[in-house]
C-alpha cells in the first residue's frame, strides 16, 4: 500500500512518518507538498507533526487553507483513511474534519516524554491490528495537546465510540495522574463518525523501533495495512 505524507511549511515530523512507513514498515510512501493538489495515489494519508505555518495564530489554523487540503477532504469523504499526528491532529480539528479543539497544556509547559496510551476502539483503520484496551508506549511532544470539546460534542464522542486513545498508566488504568496535559476524559486521540479519519497527539511514527525506546507505534501503521488488505479482499 502507499502512505502519502503531507508536507506543510513547518512540518517537522514529515520525514519521520515517511521513514517509518517506508524504511521500517516496508510500504510505499510519498512526501506530498502542501501546494500540490494531488495525493499521488495514496491508500492512506498522514498529516505529520510540526508547527505548520509557524502556529503563530492557533496551531493548525493556517494549514487548513493549503491547496492539498481539498484533496484530503475529498479522499476522506470517499472513506479513505486519514491519520493526523500531533500538529496534524490539530490541523484536522481546525479543518473541521474532527470535532473539538486543542488548548494549552494545563501545566503550561511543553511536554516531551514516552507515555502509555490505551487503545479504546479497534474498528478504525489505524487501530484494526490492535488488541482491545492494548497499552501502547509512544512519545508525546507538544505544548498544546489539551483536548477540549463542548459538553454535547463530548457526550456524542463518547456515545458514538469516537474516543480512540486515552492517556493511561502502564497497566492501562485511565487515571487523573496519567492525564499529561489536562485533556477532557484523558482523550489522546479520536475519530470521526465514519471512523476513517483519526487524530492523536502521541507520535506512533517515533515509536517503530525498539532501539529508539519503543516499537509500540508500529501497530498503528500496520493497522492501516491490515485494514486496506481486508477492504480489497
Amino acid at each position, binding site marked *: 500500500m502507499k502512505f502519502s505524507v503531507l508536507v506543510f*511549511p*513547518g512540518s*517537522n*515530523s514529515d520525514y*519521520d512518518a515517511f*521513514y*517509518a512507513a517506508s*524504511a521500517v514498515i516496508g510500504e510505499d510512501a510519498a512526501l506530498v*507538498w502542501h*501546494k500540490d493538489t494531488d495525493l499521488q495515489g495514496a491508500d492512506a494519508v498522514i498529516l505529520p*507533526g*510540526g*508547527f505548520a*505555518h*509557524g*502556529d*503563530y495564530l492557533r496551531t493548525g489554523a493556517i494549514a487548513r487553507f493549503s491547496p492539498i487540503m481539498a484533496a484530503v477532504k475529498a479522499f476522506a469523504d470517499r472513506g479513505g483513511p486519514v491519520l493526523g499526528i500531533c500538529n496534524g491532529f490539530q490541523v484536522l480539528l481546525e479543518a473541521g474534519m474532527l470535532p473539538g479543539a486543542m488548548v494549552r497544556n494545563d*501545566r503550561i*509547559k*511543553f*511536554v*516531551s*516524554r*514516552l507515555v502509555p496510551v490505551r487503545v479504546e476502539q479497534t474498528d478504525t483503520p489505524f487501530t484494526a491490528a490492535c488488541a482491545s484496551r492494548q497499552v501502547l508506549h509512544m*512519545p508525546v*511532544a507538544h*505544548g498544546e495537546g489539551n483536548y477540549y470539546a463542548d459538553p454535547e460534542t463530548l457526550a456524542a464522542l463518547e456515545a458514538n465510540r469516537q474516543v480512540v486513545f486515552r492517556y493511561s498508566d502502564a497497566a492501562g488504568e485511565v487515571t487523573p495522574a496519567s492525564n499529561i496535559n489536562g485533556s477532557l476524559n484523558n482523550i489522546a486521540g479520536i475519530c470521526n463518525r465514519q471512523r476513517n479519519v483519526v487524530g492523536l497527539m502521541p*507520535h506512533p*511514527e*517515533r515509536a*517503530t*523501533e525498539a*532501539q*529508539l*525506546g519503543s516499537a509500540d507505534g508500529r501497530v498503528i501503521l500496520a493497522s492501516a495495512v491490515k485494514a486496506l488488505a481486508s477492504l480489497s479482499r
Partner: protein
Amino acid sequence: MAVIDAAVLERHGIKPDEYERILELMGREPNLLELGLFSVMWSEHCSYKSSRVHLRTLPTTGSRVVQGPGENAGAVDIGGGLCAVFKIESHNHPSFIEPYQGAATGVGGIIRDIFTMGARPIALLNALRFGSLATPLARRIFEGVVAGVGGYGNSIGIPTVGGEIVFDEMYSGNPLVNVLCLGISRIDGIVKGAAKGAGNPVFYVGAKTGRDGIHGATMASAEFDEKSAEKRPAVQVGDPFMEKLLMEACIEVMKTGAVLGIQDMGAAGLSCATSEMGSRGGVGMAIDVMHVPQRETGMTPYEIMLSESQERMLLVVEKGREHEVIEVFEKWDLHAVQVGEVIDGTRLKIHERGVLVADVPNRALTDEAPVYRRPMKEPSWQKDVQHLVPGDLGAPPAAQAAFERLLTVPTIASKRWAYGQYDHSVGTNTIAQPGMSAAVVRVKGTTTGLAVSVDGNGRFCYLDPHRGAMLAVAEAGRNVACAGGEPIGGTNNLNFGNPERPEIMWQLGEAVRGIGDACRALGIPITGGNVSLYNETEGRAIFPTPVLGVVGLLEDASKTTTRAFKRAGATVVLLGDNLGELGGSEYLATMHGKVAGQPPALDLSREAALQKLIVSLIRGGLVDSAHDCSEGGLAITLAECTFNSGGIGVTADLGAVGEGAWQPNATLFGESASRIVVSVSGDRLEAVMAAAKAAGVTAAVIGKTGGDRIQLRVGGTTAVDAAIVDAEQAWSTAIATQMGRR
C-alpha cells in the same frame, strides 16, 4: 559629516590605539559607517582578539578532520563518505538580559552555522549555568532559558538530546548558555563561507532587516552593570518558523550546485557576512543596501549593515544559474534578492542607491583585526584557595545525611524538569534519552551512531584553570566513551571574565593550555568553538568555565550502553582509582559551603587507557552498563546507576580511603578523575578483569546489583543505606520542587 571624537570611539568600544590602527589600514579617516564596521568586526566576539594567540596552540588536525577552525563549523569524517559537522556557541549576555529570546536565538544561531555548511542538523545539546535556585532571579532566568531552548528547537524539529546544567551563585549575575549543534553531511557536499569569481551575484535571503540587535556583538564584549537592562533592544527576537524554511530551502538549494559560498548573518550581521566571505575567498564584494529587504522605513546604511536581525543568509551564486536558486526559495515562500556581486580586488564596497558610502579592505576587518597578547598574572589568591585542611572544617557530617542532601542538590539532581520540555524524539534518531551520561544518535542509512557530551567544571577551573580544563576534556571524552563512542573531535566554548584584567587572562591562558594538553593526549582534535569574555557583572567574574563538547563514533550504533543497571545479580566493578579527593567537590560546596583545595589529579595516559578500555568493553558486549564518576563521587554515581533501571539496587563495599573521621565521606563523595563504574553479568567478569589488566587500568570488584536498596559500606561499615524508591523520588523531583508549579 560626523566628527569622530573620543566620545564616538568610546560608544563604538574602540580603544585609541585601535583607532590609530584603523587610520593606518584605511590610509584615511573612516566615516561613521566604516567605523561601525570596524567596531563590530573588531569586537572581542567577532575577532577573538584576546584569545587568538592562545587558541592557535590547540591541536586542530587529525586523520578524521575534514574541516578545522575558521569556517562556520568544524567537521570530522565518520566513514561511508559522511562527516559529522558540529560546533558550540554561547549566548550568555543576551540570555541574562532577556532569557527566553536570548536562549532561543542562541539555538537559532548555532543551527544556522551547521546547515550553512550543507549539513542537516540532527541534534542539539546545551551546557547551562545559573545562580542558586534559591533566588528568584536565578529561577526566572532558568525558567526562561529552558523555555527558550525548547521553544526554538522543538519548533524547528531538531531534538535537544542532552547537555549539562550546573547551579552556583557565581553565575547569578551572568548565566551561561552554550549550545552545541550536530549535523550530518556528505563530505563532498560541504559548502564553505567563501566568495569566489568576480561577477558572480550575491543574494540575500530570509527575514527582513530591522533595527534589532544593532551592536549585539559589541554588547557581548562588555561587562554588565546596573544599566544592562537598557540594552534590551540589542537582543534579537527569534522566528523558528522562518529558520525552518531557510534551513530546508538552503539544504535543497545547495544540492543544485549553483551555490558557490554561503554564510549566515549572525553576530555583526551583514558586515560580518560580506567581509568574511570576501576575505576567505581572496576577492572583494560590492553591495547596495537599497536592495536589502527592510522591516522598517528610514533605515540608514549604518543600521542595515550592523543589524543582527535573525534568520538571514548571504549566498554567492554562479552567474547564469540564479533562476535555479530563486526557484527553490520561492517554493518555500522565501524571496532571494540580489544585493550585490563579487568583485575583483579585496575591498568591501557598500553603496546606497549607487553612491559609495563605505570602502574598506575586507581583510582589515577580518584577518588584520588586532591580536592582543594581553598581560597575564596568576591571581594573588590562587595558592590560598588551593589550600585545604579537612580538620579546619569541623566534624564531618554523617555520610547518610550527606548522601541524602547531595541527591537533591540541583547540580546533581535529575534535570528532567528541563529536558521534559525539550522534544528529544523528533527526527527518530535518538538512542540514548536525555539524562544519561552522553547523548547517542544514530546516523540513518548507516550502522553508525554518534555519542556527544558537553562538560565543564567551573569550580575545578577556579581552583586550577590548567587542570580544571584538562578535567573537562577528560570528562567529556569519558562520557562519550561510556556510551561506546570513540572520541574523534571536539569543540570548545571558553567562558571567562574581562580579559583586560591580567588575572582573568591568566585563567584563560592556563585553561587553553590545559585543553591543548588533554586533547593531544586523548587524540581529540579541536575543530572550532567560541569564546565568550566579559562575563562579569559589576566587576565580579564568573568561575572560569571552559566547556568542552566531544563527539564520539560508534561503528555499530546497537553496541552502546547507558548508566542504568540492566539486571540483578551482576558484578559491579570500579575501573580506575578512588583517591578520596575532596578538593573542589560538590560535597565540599554543599556540606561545608567551601570551594577550596586542589582539583582531582589527572594522569592523561591513564585517562586515555581508561577511555580506550571502556570503548572496547562496550563494543565487545562485555559490560551491561557504564557510568562515569563525577559530581557527588562514587556514592552518587552508584545511586544514579540504580535510577531509571526499574529499581535494580546495589550492595557495594568501597574499601576505605582518606584519613580518620573523613574516611567515609572522602571515599563516598570524593571526585577523583578517570573512574568508571560498570556492571558485568555472568561469566564475562574474567574477560573484563583481564582486559583491564592488559590496558593497565585498575579494576576492583566492589559489589553486586540486586535488591531494592542502595547499600554502601566503607571499610566494612555501612555508611549509606537507602531505598531506591525514596532516593530516586528525591533526586527526580528536587528541581521541580524548587521551581514550584509556576
